[in-house]
Every structure is written in structure tokens, then in C-alpha cells.
């Protein structure tokens, strides 16, 4: 299933003022894999995405995509290499139609399609993501679940090699989550490598081949979903240290 690394993150550091948001993040993502990224709020997950796709330039370290050093590149240059992403907070082009949103993904992303071809691709992607009926609606008129799908459709229309998914399940109800998980799997089956941030733990554990756990910008654990779920460090990061808590209680 997995092959050569499509993405290599090496010693990436990023801080905001005194806050160290990422501390030597390092991992390889083999082609064809779904890699999950979890961690408590503020752990640096989205910052890591931003360092990969060029929104931030990392202060230290390198990011390699398909053996090319893309550290410090602009987002649009990264996009053109075949890396697409969705946003945690959906960012639809509100006054454009759903179709136009997705066409823009195809026109300006990896494949740089002309308008007419982009329309065909967009229609195909809209069918795939279940938005075909909304085709001519303004993006502003969609509900949250549909907007999440639109984010995904727009990223997919670029036909990327690598897809960064930032909490595409947040805010969805259980049925919608199940549907979305299925869509994510289908995307992988089409040969797209996926790096996914998610808080909906059971869904993430279900869909990922491997999981990385971040806490205060540091990678505290890495492995298969089972390994990670049983790692005491991970449990501590999420729930706090049970022993420490007991000791404080004793001192009182």
C-alpha cells in the first residue's frame, strides 16, 4: 500500500512571540497512506498544516514534497505542485456558485485546467461529494455540512497528489460523519495521499493507517491507531497525569 515518502517534514519549528507552536516536527508520509494528526486544542496541528502549505514559513527545518524542497514557498506555488488543503474554518467563496467554487479549484490548483475542462471536472467532483444538486446555488446558502463538503470538493478538483484535511468532520452529525469518512476512504482509493487533522477520535482511528500525536508543539507519540491509543503519554496529554493529580490531592 505505502510507497516512497511523498511528504517529508524535517525538524520544522515555528513560534509566535514566546509561544513555541511547533518544536522539531519530523515525519515522513508515504504515498498512498492516510496519516492522522491528533492532539489537544492548541497543540500546533493547524500550524503544522500552515507550515507545510506555505501560509507560514517555518523558522527552522525543511519541508519536502515529492522530493522538492518547498520550505518557505508561497501557498499558490505549493498548490500548483499538487498539494491541496481544506480549512478548519470553512472558507467558501460565498458570492460565487458552488460550481464556480469547485471550478476555481481545478483552474488554479495542480492541473491548471482551462474553464471548460474545469467545469467537467467540477461536475464530476460535485457528484462524488454529493453536492451535484447544489451546483448553481451560491456557496453562502449552504449549511455547515455542505460547506465542509465544498471545501473538500474544491481541494479535490485540483486533482492533488496530497490532500491536507483540517477537521472536515467537526460540526457534523453522526450520519454526516459516516458519509464523510466513506468519502475520505474513496479519495485514498483513488491514489491520493491524505494527512488529516481530526478531533472526532473514533472516526480518525478508524480511517488512519498511522497517527501522530502533537502536544504543545511536540510530537509525543506516533504509530498505528491502536498503539497510540494505549500510549500513556497520549492519555496524559488528553486527560492530565492521574498520579500527579493524586499527589496534589495528598498535599492538601
Amino acid at each position, binding site marked *: 500500500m505505502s510507497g516512497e515518502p511523498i511528504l517529508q517534514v524535517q525538524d520544522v519549528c515555528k513560534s509566535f512571540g514566546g509561544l513555541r507552536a511547533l518544536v522539531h516536527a519530523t515525519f515522513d508520509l508515504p504515498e498512498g497512506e492516510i496519516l492522522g494528526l491528533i492532539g489537544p486544542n492548541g497543540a500546533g496541528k493547524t500550524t503544522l498544516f500552515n507550515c507545510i502549505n506555505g501560509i507560514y514559513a517555518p523558522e527552522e527545518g525543511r519541508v519536502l514534497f515529492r522530493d522538492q524542497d518547498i520550505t518557505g514557498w*508561497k501557498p*499558490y506555488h505549493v498548490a500548483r505542485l499538487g498539494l491541496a488543503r481544506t480549512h478548519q474554518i470553512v*472558507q*467558501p*467563496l460565498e*458570492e460565487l456558485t458552488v460550481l*464556480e467554487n469547485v471550478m476555481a479549484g481545478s483552474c488554479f490548483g495542480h492541473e491548471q485546467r482551462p*474553464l471548460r475542462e474545469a467545469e467537467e471536472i467540477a461536475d464530476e467532483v460535485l457528484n462524488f461529494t454529493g453536492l451535484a444538486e447544489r451546483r448553481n446555488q451560491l456557496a453562502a446558502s449552504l449549511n455547515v455540512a455542505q460547506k465542509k463538503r465544498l471545501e473538500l470538493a474544491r481541494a479535490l478538483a485540483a486533482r492533488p497528489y496530497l490532500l491536507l484535511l483540517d477537521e472536515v468532520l467537526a460540526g457534523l452529525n453522526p450520519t454526516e460523519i459516516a458519509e464523510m469518512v466513506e468519502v475520505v476512504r474513496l479519495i485514498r482509493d483513488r491514489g491520493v495521499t491524505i494527512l488529516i487533522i481530526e478531533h472526532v477520535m473514533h472516526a480518525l482511528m478508524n480511517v488512519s493507517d498511522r497517527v501522530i500525536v502533537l502536544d504543545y508543539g511536540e510530537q509525543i507519540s506516533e504509530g498505528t491507531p491502536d498503539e497510540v491509543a494505549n500510549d500513556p503519554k497520549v492519555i496524559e496529554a488528553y486527560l492530565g497525569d492521574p498520579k500527579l493529580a493524586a499527589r496534589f490531592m495528598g498535599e492538601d
Partner: protein
Amino acid sequence: MKKQLGNPGLWLALVTTAAFCVWPALASNSAYARETSFTILKAVAFASSLNILLGYTGYVSFGHIVFFGLGGYVGFFLMDVYGVHLAVAALAGGLSAAVLAFLLGRAILRLRGAYFALATIGVNEAMRAFIKNFEPFGGPIGMTLNFRVYQSYGGPDRALWIAYIATALLTILVVLVSFLVKTSRFGLGLMAIRENEDAAEVMGVVAPRAKTWAYVLSAVFPGMLGVLFFFKNGNVEPGDAFVLHQSIEGIVMVMLGGQGTVLGPILGAAAYQRLRGLLLVSTLFKNIQLAVAGVLLLVIILFIPAGAIGWLRGRFPRLRRVLI
């Protein structure tokens, strides 16, 4: 391209321009009708150009008249001093405006929202101050076209008609370009920038480049328009070339008709100029006609921010194919 030319929205825009703006002057063949029509055409061309930046790209330029003024000055200088033909002068005027926009684009299009708007005002005022002290362009007095220049166009009367026809053709061209931009891949990129510049960049839109070209495109035609206008006027001076309130009137016209649509600025410009014509001859309003423009802008922004065409598009989605 073929598919685009079959678009009813394009023909509606072109026919509207031709029928309401050009035809009355040609039919009556009177100098008065021609002057009225000239004013309207100038407004339509200016508003449609501004719309490429304001409506499609979402960047508000409060100093757009600087391109009109600079182009006018450059073309006028070439005609007056070197005896260059009007057509060549108009191209040179357009080119100079484009070059200015390109250089400015690199510098100030990095600013967003109000900061960009403020910078554009600064550019207009700086340019006026510069021209005022630039002796080759006549300094504060400006330049007056030698009467003999008109002779080479077959006398003043014919020269004025030539300037008028050229303005009409230029306006048609602007409308066509506006439509082509709106329905192109480039235009989709601009609208993506307007809706959400950060998201557009993540999708792969090279925003700095797209914005610069939008700015250049929206500057070329006002530059050419300036040459035609001041050729017709016979003289040019700093106070006439860089009138800040004309920039603002441009914004009013775009907003009134509907920013980001092809038809909107055409209707907005025609309607605003008609209104202004009425106000200027009314005893009550003739001194406060600019205040009316201000109130109008306020009312539009408060109640129909999408403008007339935008409102119709929202109200009747079926009309979207035509009201482009």
C-alpha cells in the same frame, strides 16, 4: 471564445451601451446631444474599467482618476509638442496609465481594505502635486492645444466628432473587455480573490500577479479616455485632470448599477449622469449635486449593497444568465 460571444448578457450590455449612450447623439447629429452623450460614455467607460478592480477583484480605488489625468496629460503633450496623431496619443496615454498601475500594483496592492483605498488617494494627490510642478507639462497652468492641430482632422467641428466616435468605440471595447474578463479563467481568479484572498492563494491563485493585471487593465482605458477628453477640451490643467471627487463619483456609479456585474456599471453610469444633468440645472440642487452623490452612495450601501443589477440577480435567479 465562440461560446462567450453567444452569451445574451454580452449582447444586452453592448446593445444597452449603443442604444442609450451612442444612438441619441448620432441620430440627432447635434453638438448638444453629442456633448451629453460624450459625458455619459466617458462615465460608462470609466465605471466599467473601475469595476474590473472594484467589482471583480474587490479592491476599492478612491484615486482611479489619476490614470485618466496622467494618460490625458501624456497624450496631450505628445499631440501638442510632437504633433502625434490622436490615435497614437490615445495609445500612449493608455500605456502610461498601464505602466503607472503596474508599478503601483507592485507597491500598494499588498495593502488590503481601507489601507489600499487610502494609498490610492495619496497617489492621486501626489501625482497632481507633481504635474503642477512639472514644467514640460506646463506646470500649474497646464497646456492648451494649438488650434492648428484640429485642422489636420478637418477642422474643429470634425475633430470633435472624431473624438466622440473614438470615445464611443473605446466604450464598446471596455464593455467587451469587462465581459471577457468576467467570463474568463482570469476573472474567476479575481473573483476568488474578492471573496477570500487567503483561500484563493491556497487554491493556487497567484494573487499578487492577478491583482496587478486587474489593476493595469482597469487603468489602461481611463488613460486612453483622458487623451480623448482633453483633445476634445483643447486644454488640460492639473485641477481638471486629477479631480478626486470624480473618482468617488466613479465608485457611486459602479455601486449604483451593481458592482461585479458587466451591465451594472453601464446602467449606473448612465443613470447617475442623467441625474447629475437634472441636478445641475435645478435651482435647488445645482450647488449641492455632489452632496446628492454622497447621499446616494450611503443609501446604496445601506439598502442595496449589491446595486440595481445585483439586486435583480439575487431576487430573480433566472435572470442571472442575462444580467451578467
